[in-house]
């Protein structure tokens, strides 16, 4: 294996071995504590611009599945390409074994020209990121590259699709504002008798005829999504149900008049506990975000819907009277626990109720 190094903005240099593409790449270095699901993670558009450190020490065991389509979208992956800028692991398993594997993780990364580095003390690195906060960094192969802060980019614009797409012919018409949606969100809707209209992040969906509005996840700072917030503010004037996930939740908070802030090192894992406020019910959730809604800034007609049991941060908001709610976590999972998928049902119930009330 060729030698490569990981360089952090604080000057830290870590030697390791190359896998995937032997190339250099820069980005924001973040860590995820998920123990499984690298094909899902790497294709999650929310990771755009980030060099991902996996704390689980052995990666690549079950290879990467082949592409299969479900209603013209990927059946397995969370988008149509790898979105991370680079991958950092302790041990890369060159051989893999799984009935549905089509290739190795290394080959797959190489296909998308994404560098991987292994042989890294990822725990040491994670502790550094935890203490100093997410940092800029780069994987350096043959040639050096400059550091680059992806949060300065409009990442959403980069990962959002060009045009409008239609899926399904179900009874409820849902507009999905795609700021970098995971395909499992689409699957979750399509399994629930929905006609889905997928629109770009800056598309003026207020002109469309729909029953419910959905705001997807996506990468980067929510405040970059100015047109989305503007369109959303119009939608909030109406009464049609709105559901947002992750970045979608932050956008809802901003549109409602609240503020968002950058977490020190974010939540990226499959084991985040959230509590449904005012109840004894808690859920284990899948998360991947670096920003959060500042609950204190929410206007009076909004409440915190879910709270993170570990650090008390906002895990979702809801309007006190209207059918608007959001989650910071990912009810669609993929990867991670599926315990909150019922929220799609709740949203569609609201949609039906709203339609019936018309």
């Amino acid at each position, binding site marked *: 294996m060729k030698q490569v190094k990981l360089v952090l903005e604080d000057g830290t240099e870590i030697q390791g071995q190359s896998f995937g593409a032997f190339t250099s790449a820069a980005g924001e270095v973040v860590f995820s504590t998920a123990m499984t699901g690298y094909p899902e993670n790497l294709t999650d558009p929310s990771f755009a611009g980030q060099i991902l450190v996996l704390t689980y020490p052995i990666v690549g065991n079950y290879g990467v599945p082949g592409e299969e389509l479900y209603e013209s979208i990927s059946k397995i992956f969370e988008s149509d390409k790898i979105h991370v800028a680079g991958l950092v692991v302790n041990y890369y398993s060159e051989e893999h074994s799984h009935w549905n594997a089509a290739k190795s993780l290394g080959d797959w990364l190489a296909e998308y020209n994404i560098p991987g580095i292994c042989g890294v003390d990822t725990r040491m690195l994670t502790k550094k990121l935890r203490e100093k906060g997410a940092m800029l960094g780069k994987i350096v192969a043959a040639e050096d590259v400059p550091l680059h802060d992806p949060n300065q980019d409009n990442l959403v614009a980069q990962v959002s699709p060009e045009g409008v797409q239609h899926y399904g012919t179900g009874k409820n018409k849902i507009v999905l504002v795609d700021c970098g949606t995971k395909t499992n969100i689409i699957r979750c809707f399509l399994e629930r008798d929905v006609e889905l209209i997928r629109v770009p992040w800056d598309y003026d969906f207020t002109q469309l005829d729909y029953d419910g509005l959905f705001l997807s996840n996506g990468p980067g700072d929510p405040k970059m999504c100015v047109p989305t917030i503007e369109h959303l503010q119009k939608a909030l004037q109406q009464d049609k149900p709105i559901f947002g996930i992750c970045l979608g939740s932050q956008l809802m908070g901003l549109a409602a008049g609240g503020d968002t802030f950058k977490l020190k090192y974010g939540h990226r894992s499959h084991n985040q506990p959230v509590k449904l406020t005012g109840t004894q019910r808690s859920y*284990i959730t899948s998360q991947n975000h670096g920003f959060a809604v500042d609950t204190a800034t929410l206007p009076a007609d909004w409440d915190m819907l879910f709270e993170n049991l570990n650090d008390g941060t906002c895990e979702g908001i809801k309007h006190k009277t209207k059918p608007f709610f959001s989650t910071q976590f990912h009810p669609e999972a993929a990867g991670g626990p599926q315990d909150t998928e019922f929220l799609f049902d709740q949203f569609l119930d609201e949609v039906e109720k709203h339609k019936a009330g018309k």
Partner: protein
Amino acid sequence: MEKPQKVLILGSGALKIGEAGEFDYSGSQALKALKEEGIRTILINPNIATVQTSDDIADDVYFLPVTPYFVEEVIKKEQPDGILVAFGGQTALNCAVALYRAGVFEKYNVRVLGTPVQSIIDTEDRDIFKEKLDQIGVLTARSEAVTTMEDALAAAERIGFPIIVRAAFALGGLGSGFANNMEELRTLAQKSFSTSDQILVEESLKGWKEVEYEVVRDQFDNCITVCNMENFDPIGIHTGESIVVAPSQTLSNREYHKLRSIGIKTIRHLGIVGECNIQYALDPHSEEYRVIEVNARLSRSSALASKATGYPLAFVAAKLSLGYSLAELKNSVTQTTSAFFEPSLDYLVVKLPRWDLSKFSGVQRQIGSAMKSVGEVMAIGKTFEEAVQKGLRMLDTGRRGFVANKPEPIDLADLDRLLSEPNEERIFAINEAFQAGYDVERVYELTRIDRWFLQRLYGIYQLSLELGEKRQQGGLDALDTDLLRQAKKSGFSDQQLAVQLLGPAEVKANEMLVRARRKALGVLPVVKQIDTLAAEFPAQTNYLYLTYHGTENDLAPETDKSVVVLGSGVYRIGSSVEFDWCGVNAAQTVNEEGYKSIIINYNPETVSTDYDVSDRLYFEELSYERVMDILDFEAPQGVILSTGGQIPNNIATRLEAAGAPILGTAAARIDEAENRHKFSSIMDELGIAQPRWSELTTMEAIYDFVKQVGFPVLIRPSYVLSGAAMNVVSNPQELEEYLKLAAEVSAEYPVVVSEFIQEAKEIELDAVADKGEIVSYAISEHVEFAGVHSGDATMYYPPQRVYVGTVRKLKVIAEKIAKRFEISGPFNIQFLEKNGAIRVIECNLRASRSFPFVSKVSGHNLIKKATKVLLGQHVERDASELVYDLPFVGVKASQFSFTRLQGADPVLRVDMTSTGEVGCLGDTAEEALLKSLLSVGYRIPEKTVLMSSGPLLSKVALLSAAKLLVQKNYTIYATHGTHLFLTENGVASTLVYWPDELQEPNALTYLRERKIDLVINIPKNLTKGELDNDYKIRRTAVDFNIPLITNARLAKAFIKAFTTLKLQDLSIKSWKEFKAQTEPVL
């Protein structure tokens, strides 16, 4: 929910195969959890060697059998308002179900906390379980019970091939097998119908992956899965017999979360509150799954999951049973985050089972759906390679890892069978296969072990070849840092490197060269923490392991003065929970004396590996290399070896030579006691008698020696075939027979022959000395005469039939030994006494198996005293003598697990075979004996006893007992010689024929028809016919679950006890109540 005031907890009794130390751990945690709530706790557990029965854990302890009768009596007396039944294994669960069905809980108004008993029943009954899962569309293995060939074929049609056929109600898998098509099924079913009227036609899951989840649920329906685990061995091998990794390694996210979701759905539907385990079969070629079973209680897997993740499952389960929600409880590692979360691991663990099958004669070696292992280890690493090699060493079977072991003769022709029909050596057979040129694919075809695991093993094998090549190129000097680091990352020990680089001789000396070179090259392991959240949040955790996959230590060495306590490692026959108690007590005393305690141990079934027991826990190997790595890092003030059994003692000399600050008796003295020759000459020098013995290398020499000392002799070959480790032979024919079993007698494999003294009392002394002066001691007496291994023997403490004069002599000898060996710390001496003459048979300069028993009965905690001595504190000589004034008696009895070991001969011998023990208290010796025998599974016979009383000596010994039986209206069935003897002595008995007499009434028929309540079978001699006959009776008794005694002295004591005492006569007194009687005395 209202919090209960007083809660009863059921323990699991003696350690046995399938139910071992994990329940000491879970019970101790539950007690801790309740104590924190200010709830009064009552524990019933006869296992006196456990930590949970220590005096500061439960408020009251009853050393009584965990059976419905005794539990009801305790309930009647104590009137608890709650009971916890999920912390004492299957024993406690079965007992609880029986009490529930009898309406006892209702009658006494006792609330079952946690999972309702009905939910337990739902999971235990196969039919109800299937039905419950059907209700929510969760799949179980398809199975149909049929009684005709036509139905069998039709069922197979519906289920699909391959099919497994099982004969219902047949012991030991008789008449079961696999069928791949109709024809095979026809043949198989025919055979099965010949042994049983009903057969089960089941979908075969052979070769599927076996995966488990630990699920926790609170009464508000919040659910988490704390850990998932994947078996290295596919379905077909019991999970207790499998190598297991956590978390799963070959499951995709979809598979992982599909099974997780099904687990949560199932557990919600079953209504479990607390913790449970769900096991799946997962198709290796699709996402198809079947639920195999749910254990609605803490289990071996949950103990493993707790240790694997740092999530205290038992503690949390106990809190949930009080009505808490998961979110209200804190993560006890971080102390800041919530207990409602799922641990994320940044390492993996590998669990490996430890078998002791070679201890048993006649046992079937193959492993499969029934558990046979007696212990397990858990290894932590950053890769499978690193962890599995650690784990193979931890098993303490002389293996250095996956490679670089002593070559063992494996029949290559047998290799395929060893791979496809595994025994306990399968993983080494995989190595043999690689050596024989098999590739991963071929091994996969034979084993169905996932290729990923095989690839990892193959990588280790290849690396060993690469290292081997360096041997020609200059050995150590040819080794570069990169290759060395790679080898260490792949779990190679310095010894393995020594073998590969420098050859198979002088391994220990060469290990030192490797170590020096490695340190010179700066290749050192780093210390990492287990923190449940993969470093996402800061954690003040002291739960540590070492790895070569790292560049930074997670923490700095302990700066306060500290003492390292070495644990006892893997549980095996001869060393188990009793040494855990010793280790925990030593660590506690270290803390009480103002030092930081550092424990090194790797056994997931222990309390000592709970991270709140010590200031630092290194979940690590107890090898010279690893202990030195830790000592180099921590630089403690002292190291305690003497509370961890034999494993730490074995490295004493090397640790001392390396400058380790060993506390207590010098390593050189330990060596003098452990080396048979040195010890003997010291005994001669001190004028202390020993049975005569000699180490011999030829047959002639053996016969000459026997001529000198006379028969019987105790004979101990160093290289033996299975089950023939040690034996007593009484005549030349037996000697010859026996030596045939010893595969070889030579200079390399000498045989030790000792004079065997018949009808000698065996007496043990456990003591603590300070610089050669005894400060406390305890003398206990075996019920059986010498010839039964002290670990299998039944013991009285204080002694009941030992003369004061004898005690005085023993003390004098012990004092001499303590002085000569300059003992500081714990030690144990075993004596023989006959007609006032005393001989020493063994001396261990460490704590012994009986330390917890004598400490708890006497109230003098020998380990606390020993630890104080080790730390240099002055310990006053106590009034050990006054123990004879104790107004009660303790009896320690052994638990055997023969039922689990198909084919094994259930007989007491000089080699130890018991897997556990209990200790009970009584106002009289008879009462204590009866309680303890009832605790290890004996039942008071109702009407009938089968006697074959062996040689004349034991016939005479049992005569009075036989008379007692007749007086109490028992019917004695006797085999020929015994019948004659009894008749001649005027005792009525009914003749039954020996198995080989093939005549009715035959002993075997009576056993099978369950006409016999107790079997007394004293082995006569080693001739083939006798062996077979006796064996058949003993084995049948065990297979039909009929109590069996094979020792005349024990039989006599038992008969005397149950003919003079009724069940109702046995006092229901707590340990405190017994102790209160002693207060004026001690």
